[in-house]
């Protein structure tokens, strides 16, 4: 926890750190938050069908991942979202902790900003610590990643965790890849379902 009064460290380059943390994206069913993380993951996966990326319903990413994890206990489910999106429905961390599915990992790529709307500071630039909120919500396994050497261990955790896990990765407030994707959620839904037979 940042008790020193110093600014939190937002130093990692997301265009390097996110691909390193996620690693083989095919290892997961993925729900990606709005804007930054949605572009990170659709670019990384080349619009693969096992990535459902939101472009609205801000705050729904974690609950979608929870429903998916409960429905598919044999698959690893990765929720990857930004600080603004997670803050909008942060209580979902408590619901995820209570259900505690062994196959769910939640990653928050925290740049401390609302990048889509003019780079205004979010609460995480102003003293709010989402890892501590995850701990307080009851998530038993959490990590804070602010330096490159911390990424490999966190990358293993999101694959091997035996309960809902949470990784807070702080990054510089810079652009995600300029990736154009199909924003139609019905297309995404049908594609995701077709690639995941019952």
């Amino acid at each position, binding site marked *: 926890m940042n008790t020193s009064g110093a600014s939190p460290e937002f130093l990692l380059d997301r265009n390097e750190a996110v691909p390193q943390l996620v690693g083989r994206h095919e290892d997961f*069913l993925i*729900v990606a938050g709005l804007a930054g993380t949605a572009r990170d993951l659709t670019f990384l996966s080349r619009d693969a069908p096992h990535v*459902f990326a*939101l472009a*609205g*319903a*801000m*705050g*729904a*990413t*974690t*609950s*979608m*991942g*929870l*429903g*998916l*994890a*409960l*429905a*598919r206990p044999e698959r690893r489910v990765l929720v990857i979202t930004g600080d603004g999106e997670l803050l909008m*429905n942060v*209580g*979902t961390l*408590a*619901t995820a902790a*209570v*259900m505690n599915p062994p196959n769910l990992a939640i990653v928050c790529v925290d740049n401390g900003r609302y990048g889509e709307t003019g780079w205004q500071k979010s609460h995480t630039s102003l003293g709010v610590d989402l890892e501590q909120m995850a701990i307080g919500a009851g998530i038993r396994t959490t990590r804070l990643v602010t330096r490159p050497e911390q990424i490999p261990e966190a990358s293993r955790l999101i694959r091997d965790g035996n309960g809902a896990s949470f990784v807070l990765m702080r990054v510089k407030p810079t652009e995600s890849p300029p990736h154009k994707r199909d924003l*139609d*959620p*019905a297309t*995404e*839904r049908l594609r*995701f*379902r077709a690639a*995941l037979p*019952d």
Partner: protein
Amino acid sequence: MKTFERAHPAERTATGAQRGEPTAGVTWPDEIYRVLREFGVTQFAYVPDAGHKVLIDRSLSDPAVHSVALTTEEEGVGLLAGAHLGGARGVLLMQSSGVGNCINFLSLVRGGQFPFLMLVSMRGDFGEGNPWQMPMGRAVEPVLEAMGVMCLRVDDAREAADTVRAAATMVYQAGQAVAILLTQKLIGAKPF
């Protein structure tokens, strides 16, 4: 009390929880639970309300389903969409005041054409005594319809199971978004 008998006016002051107790055989909430399980629903998501007490308790004691208590109702919209992506079926239970919390998340349901079933126990409805409940209760149908969710009202216990069966067919076979409104004629008005 007979199982499917319409409530005597004097009983309408009882809470839904009291009237939902399975004291005289199978009650309408038990029938609803049975229908939902017949349709293969395995995720029951809810913010607790007295009107859903039986459904919540049944889901908690059923090892074949996930009983998911939410911190706020809109989480349930995301949860059910995620369940569908994974090939599972869910239902979202809430009091009418929770409908307002869901509105923007219903963009996901409508835009993504997700099948979606919610059961809403009404407040701000027939015989309401709490003025705080009236604005949202009166707004439930117009806001849900505006977001593309079809509303089916249940006033009579004898119609509850059939209405849920009809809704579940439209949701899980025809891919629609449907809200069943369990009215205060059915569940009774809370006394103040």
